[in-house]
């Protein structure tokens, strides 16, 4: 039982890391970035290309995250401008459709250039024992990274001036502008952060299983579910939702059976949304 829960937490931290990048962008004016998963895949391909050319893993990972962040900023500086000029539901819909188009473009280009592209980062070493349960080194490191990111993000939004500025934009765009915060600068920074997180997701995921070019769509849909269950715009919520869903996933895979698990997981997500439409930690 202890091992099952612990595995679930490890899985869930990965889910949380996946959801957090999407939730941040949504927080800024209600745009769901449907190209999020494809940006992660773009990062993954950059990492694998860098590694093929002989870059050390850490350097390659850093390059991949920077590339994903750059792509995300490019998206913000070009296509997102007209989106943010709209308000309300028109903004939401235009944002959905444009990022959907971007997703098609990215996946199309990657499929064309690297049809068999995949990223797998092998983490060697003996299984690490946690609370008496041996865990694969790769997943332990992935969890440590996810926890580190959660901590840094929470500190950033809780303590630094800029982080509070971002939160003020999330809460009230007009009010933030009145007290001298530039929403568009904040947005660009958040898009960069979100893109970098997408790249990091690609890296941590590839530490336990290969990440292929076609995985982007699934990444986006799952990030969406985690972000909504946690409460859109909430960093802590995304991680909480991720861990809860991870535990549900693993427990049901272990006790009920592999095939039902996906349905149990989705039912848990739907149930949470219906009981708390704002998400676990949503406002």
């Amino acid at each position: 039982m202890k091992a099952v829960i612990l595995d679930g937490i490890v899985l869930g931290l990965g889910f949380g890391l996946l959801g957090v990048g999407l939730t941040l962008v949504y927080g800024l004016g209600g745009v769901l970035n449907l190209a999020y998963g494809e940006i992660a895949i773009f990062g993954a391909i950059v990492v694998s290309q860098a590694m093929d050319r002989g870059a050390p893993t850490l350097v390659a990972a850093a390059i991949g995250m920077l590339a994903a962040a750059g792509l995300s900023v490019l998206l913000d500086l070009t296509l997102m401008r007209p989106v943010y000029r709209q308000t309300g539901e028109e903004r939401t819909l235009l944002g959905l459709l444009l990022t959907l188009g971007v997703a098609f473009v990215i996946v199309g280009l990657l499929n064309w250039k690297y049809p068999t592209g995949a990223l797998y980062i092998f983490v060697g070493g003996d299984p690490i024992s946690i609370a008496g349960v041996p865990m694969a080194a790769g997943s332990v490191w992935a969890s440590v990274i996810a926890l580190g990111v959660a901590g840094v993000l929470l500190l950033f939004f809780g303590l630094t001036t800029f982080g509070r500025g971002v939160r003020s934009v999330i809460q009230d765009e007009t009010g933030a502008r009145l007290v001298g915060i530039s929403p568009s600068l904040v947005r660009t920074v958040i898009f960069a952060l979100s893109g970098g997180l997408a790249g990091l997701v690609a890296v941590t995921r590839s530490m336990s299983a290969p990440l292929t070019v076609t995985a982007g769509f699934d990444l986006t849909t799952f990030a969406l579910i985690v972000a909504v269950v946690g409460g859109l715009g909430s960093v802590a919520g995304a991680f909480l939702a991720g861990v809860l869903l991870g535990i549900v996933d693993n427990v049901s895979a272990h006790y009920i059976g592999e095939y039902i698990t996906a349905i149990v997981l989705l039912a848990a997500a739907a149930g949470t949304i219906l009981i708390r439409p704002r998400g676990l930690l949503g406002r």
Partner: protein
Amino acid sequence: MSEAPHTRPRRARVLLTLARALLPIAVAAAILVVLPPLWFEDSPYTTGLAVEALVFGCYAVGFNLIFGSTNQLFLCVGALAGVGGYATAILSDKASLPLAVGVAIGTVSAAIVGGVLSWIAVRRSLNVIFTGIVTLVFSLAFTNFIIGQRDLTGADTGYVLQGAATDLADDRIGGYYLFVALLVGLLIVFRVLQLSHVGWAFKALRDDEVAAELAGVDVARYRIYAAVVGSAMIGLTGGLFAYSLGFISPVTYGFAQVDVQVLIIVAFGGLGTLLGPVVGAAAFGFLDRALTDSGQLREAYYGAFVIAIFLFLRRGVIPFVLGLFDRLAALRRRSQRMEGATPGRAER
């Protein structure tokens, strides 16, 4: 024919209104009917693509009724069609019921599922995004369910329908006319709803939900109503499509394959407009054919096209064209007024 003579002008007026209301549908139907002999009758490949475009047009009419008219983002079009499709396939194949019964049961099941989803969304007063996520989750669960029931559905390998009629197959002209008839039928239903009191309620609740509620429109009831009718349309299309394809698999009704496309089609044509789904389906049908030879770059071109469209035609084709007409009419009115105001100058 024993009515008093004075009621006749009124009846004629009603008929005239009805004829004018159905005119766009008649024009669209005429174009669709004469298209094959003029163009692609001999090419099974193009016919197949045309049938697919028509099927997407039918899905889009249903989705348009649900999302375009009552603002419920149903991201489960594929799943609802799948309910219709798998019910049709399994009932007429395994339980050897007549095809019509299978299609009917499939349609009703889809209507019930759509109604329940809408009821849940209305009861929990979910907004657009959250309705979208709950229905998306339902879609993914449905696909997993189909894959899990291997004995019944054939899972990923798919399911071959034994009783499918070859002359209605999707690369035959019979299949083409089957779906033209279906599309026209659905459009008529959509138009009649638009003109009835239901249409007024839809318009009111789309413009301002709170105001509509205050004015006595039962918003919840009309939402569920739209979801039931729209889902029935989607389920019926899914069932007939299964029959015409003769083979279905989870991909036939997959989220990525159906819902994404339908959303783009309806947004491109114009949300809530009568002919928007048809225009959108036709445009993407042509695009599909044009991109046939671009191989692996197909998706990239498709995405670039989607981006370009929504950057420049934000509200869709139909509202754009109607707006153009309005502007032209206003221009003409203004020039007439100016001529009328200064009659002397015009003569001089």
